[in-house]
């Protein structure tokens, strides 16, 4: 009986790989070195162990991810999360959407925005600023991308400066990348069934 999650949620699921992750005991020196650049080196996740099959990519991706999502200045972290959520909803990456909906709620001290997104998806009624951000990120994430000059103008109209728009482009595009790993290489599983 399938325990795979298909609905968006804010409760972070467990991720089950569709390929065999690298076994830590069998890891090469290069793989061990790459695994150290991940946020936690005490317990390496199945996801990171899966990506360790491609050491060269893993080494460069983790610092790039951190810079795009966490570097100071530009767009607020909360709004960067909105870009990540939009991309994850377009690509139906239930795992990524849950992680970043949870982060958005924690960073904004409110579940209001993500409650609306979980309830109504792309039809959610957001504030004008959030709506312009979410709409741009959604259209940039489509395949082929649908974002256009009017969408950038809509961002400018609600007050976004160039540095904020740039951060939105980067965070949304980054999740086009992350979704194509997380959603393609594994399944989101109900956490409580694994406990």
């Amino acid at each position, binding site marked *: 009986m399938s325990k795979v999650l298909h609905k968006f949620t804010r409760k972070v699921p467990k991720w089950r790989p569709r390929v065999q992750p690298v076994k830590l005991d069998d890891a090469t020196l290069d793989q061990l070195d790459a695994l150290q650049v991940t946020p936690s080196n005490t317990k390496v996740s199945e996801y990171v162990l899966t990506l360790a*099959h*491609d050491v060269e990519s893993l080494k460069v991706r983790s610092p790039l991810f951190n*810079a795009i999502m966490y570097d100071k200045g530009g767009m607020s972290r909360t709004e960067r999360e909105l870009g990540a959520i939009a991309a994850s909803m377009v690509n139906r990456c239930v795992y990524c959407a849950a992680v970043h909906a949870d982060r958005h709620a924690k960073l904004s001290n409110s579940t209001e925005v993500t409650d609306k997104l979980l309830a109504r998806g792309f039809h959610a009624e957001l504030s004008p600023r959030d709506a312009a951000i979410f709409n741009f990120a959604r259209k940039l994430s489509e395949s082929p991308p649908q974002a256009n*000059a009017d969408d950038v103008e809509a961002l400018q109209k609600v007050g976004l400066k160039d540095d904020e728009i740039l951060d939105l482009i980067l965070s*949304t595009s980054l999740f086009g990348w992350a979704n194509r790993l997380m959603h393609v*290489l594994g399944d989101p599983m109900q956490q409580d069934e694994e406990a």
Partner: protein
Amino acid sequence: MSLFEPSTLEVSGISAESSVGEAISTRSNIFEMTQLAESAVLRPLEYGMFPHDVRAALAYRIAARAGESRLAEYYAASVGDKFNLAESTMIEGEPESTLIPFVDKAANATRDIVAEDISKLKAVGVSDADIVRLCELIAFVAYQVRVALGLRLMNGGA
């Protein structure tokens, strides 16, 4: 290397003097790391079953199908005799026509990917490591396509 040499910026047509160029200069570390990622994914030392020219051909295909013609042209220069992969339905020597449909689906219909798509790759002998390598390539180019378009839109382009 100047900030505006990384390929993602070059194909967007952004100049250092523009207002967008100013914003980009505050995120120069990100564009430098993006360039490192491109090297790691397109031209890795450990390329598995996907040599550099095949990777360039697949990148060309993904960029072209996303409408990013300048990025596609950039990759076309490294494709060599694998150029026909852009329109082909299979890679030469592949036991079944499995890889190209997978690339197209993961790149352009990501939401529709299911476990069976990975099982099909395994069934034709693609190793777990090569599946991860292929996904990294697809995922990076999807990122690069969207950064390039976003920057061009910021710069007033269509």
